[in-house]
């Protein structure tokens, strides 16, 4: 009987693993601790008391653009600045995401067009806009193109009730005249929506039983628009439109997108759409030719092949990187600092930080906002990936 040779403790992988991990935890923990301690010491040495007490102090600067949030100089507090910043970040991100998705899908599809000129044109678009730094593009549009060439408010470019000038983009804004009317209208619209959902379900059942197809989308759209308008009249036209009117120096009333927001949105859209277009192209090309041929062999029409075979498979490849692009767009909106649009980094990590010197708290909160958005994005991505995995066989 041989005796089992004992491994010396320092050669045992399990013991070593634990030792290494404890060591790593201690080093990292101590690093953070000393970093924190030095920072607090430094702040104290500079006479800055770290904490959140400055939230309630009145912010001594004006913010020009606060669409959903009342901000008054002399009354609003620093913490309001934080929320105004978040709100402006979200606003430009949402506007950018909508426009970049539409433009990106369009460019990505025409990139695969059988027309040589059109596909080359799309290629040039993609290669130009994704290979030039976004910051340069934002500054170019704002300082070199829009500011010098757009007219003064007096000579605004008018498109119906929309006006574009060197101060920004002015739009009419709906104003609620009659609250109960709006409530009735929304209630009626909800009923209409539920009805349409039931109709869509019936149509699906009918299709599965008889193979007859109804143009659900077009019928729903028509009903929604016509019905919505009729209900609007029925509930007593509860909205009015506040149109921008030219005052002595600038437009008054209506909604205003200031020029920095407009330039930022414009540049973000062009830049991100180039990346989305590449995703769309890659996604469509990833569906193998055999799939299309098999669909034709089964007798599916061209339209059905595209709608039922190509697009569903392409979307699986397109959507995950596109969601990452949405996150990038949101993070990139922080470049607004360069043109003076008042989003989170500009007003909070910029102006407020300069005014209060509370670097630790302010940068921490700014980073936390972006980390939350990033976590949210990865949750959505994981959820989506899991969902499409289930449908796979």
């Amino acid at each position: 009987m041989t005796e089992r040779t004992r491994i010396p403790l320092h050669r045992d992988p399990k013991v070593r693993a634990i030792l290494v991990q404890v060591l790593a935890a201690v080093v990292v923990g101590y690093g953070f601790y000393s970093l924190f301690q030095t920072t607090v010491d430094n702040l104290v040495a500079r006479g800055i008391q770290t904490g959140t007490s400055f939230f309630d102090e009145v912010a001594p600067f004006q913010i020009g653009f606060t669409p959903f949030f009342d901000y008054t100089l002399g009354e609003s507090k620093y913490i309001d600045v934080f929320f105004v910043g978040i709100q402006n970040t979200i606003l430009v991100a949402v506007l950018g995401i909508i426009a970049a998705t539409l433009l990106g899908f369009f460019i990505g599809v025409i990139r695969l067009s059988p027309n040589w000129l059109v596909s080359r044109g799309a290629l040039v678009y993609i290669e130009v806009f994704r290979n030039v730094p976004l910051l340069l593009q934002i500054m170019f549009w704002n300082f070199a193109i829009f500011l010098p060439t757009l007219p003064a408010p007096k000579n605004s470019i008018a498109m119906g009730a929309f006006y574009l000038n060197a101060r920004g983009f002015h739009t009419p804004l709906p104003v609620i005249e009659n609250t109960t009317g709006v409530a009735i209208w929304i209630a009626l619209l909800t009923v209409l929506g539920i009805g349409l959902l039931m109709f869509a379900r019936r149509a699906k059942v009918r299709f599965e039983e008889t193979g007859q197809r109804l143009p659900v989308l077009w019928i729903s759209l028509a009903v929604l628009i016509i019905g919505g308008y009729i209900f609007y009249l029925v509930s007593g036209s509860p909205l009015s439109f506040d149109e921008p009117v030219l005052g002595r120096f600038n437009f008054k009333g209506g909604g205003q997108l200031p020029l920095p927001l407009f330039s930022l949105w414009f540049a973000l859209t062009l830049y991100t759409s180039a990346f989305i277009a590449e995703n769309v192209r890659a996604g469509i090309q990833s569906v193998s030719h055999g799939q299309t041929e098999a669909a034709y062999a089964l007798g599916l029409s061209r339209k059905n092949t595209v709608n039922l075979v190509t697009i569903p498979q392409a979307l699986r490849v397109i959507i995950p990187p596109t969601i990452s692009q949405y996150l990038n767009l949101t993070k990139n909106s922080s470049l607004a600092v360069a043109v003076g649009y008042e989003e989170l980094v500009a007003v909070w990590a910029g102006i407020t930080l300069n005014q209060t010197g509370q670097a630790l708290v302010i940068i921490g909160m700014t980073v936390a906002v972006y980390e939350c958005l990033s976590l949210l994005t990865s949750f959505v991505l994981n959820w989506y990936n899991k969902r499409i995995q289930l449908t796979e066989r």
Partner: protein
Amino acid sequence: MSEVKIFVPAPDRLPPSNTLGPIAWVRENLFGSIISSIATLLFFYLFFSYVPPFLEWALIKANWTGTDRSVCEANTAGACWTFINVRLEQILFGLYFASKPEELWRPTLIFVLFFALLLPLLFERTPGKKWLSIILLGVFPVVFYFIVYGGSFGIPQSNTTQWGGFLLTFALAFVGILLALPIGILLALGRRSEMPVIRSICVIYIEFWRGTPLITILFMASVMLPLFFPAGVEFDKVVRAMIGITMFQSAYTAEAVRGGLAAIPKGQAEAAMALGLGYWRRTVFITLPQALKISIPSIVNTFIALFKDTSLVSIIGLLDLLNMAQTAARSVEWKGYDIEGYLFAGFIYWAFCYGMSRYSQNLEQKLDTDRRN
């Protein structure tokens, strides 16, 4: 005897002109359907209403010569490249070297050296690629430091606060990729480690830097970095930006390398284990070399993103290529020539990024076929 008639076939008729040749190509590719024809016409309309006027402005009627703005003011129909011409040294090498003509050889030599080392690396059949890359990544930065920063060998020390232009952009990007590569590799290995503590440290590090916009990181580096160190430790602005960029870039490099590591079949590591190799020898000799080879395209892609992102340092007040071009275009002598400044800077960025992306696409295709064989 009657003459023998030999059958001579008539010469082949050419295929109908609508299936071959340029006309057929045009029919198929430009006027294939009604929509396609409309698109072609629309394309021509847009092309001819924008491109010739632009070319006329940018090239034909442009001002190239002269030393001050009077030339450009005399001819406003064309672009003012005179401005770029006069300020070229500033835009490329920054204020310090532009103000000292006798020192201009330093950045020039550095760029010549860099391209002399880089170009042979791009071709497949260059012998001794390994040594070239070692020189580029190991020796070149040292040479860069001694020549551009100076302060020894009788070379006067340059002032980093006056570094700028393309030289600064280049320095930031190069330092970023150089330092981020080893850190990124370690992080990627850590993220795939079986030890939960190591793994979570790496995951938190990577996700933290990836979730934050670079501009916030640069703010952090320029405002908070001095707070993190005991009083008396001072970094200059350029070094602070370099630290921020390295942190940021290492997280992205780690993800690129992790992709490569994940693509290596498990059998490789298992075979190495069976041969009795420990973790480090297994990693350094077996898995990592293969993983790095696969991940080169994605590393190049993160590098392209970094190269573009270096322009953000202009927000924290460094005079990089973008900021230098802008500052020059806002100077008293050249006020109002923003478009030329942005276009020139944009063209330099574009040329580098486009070149790198083509290179990475080529590499990707090559690596792809390798695996299928």
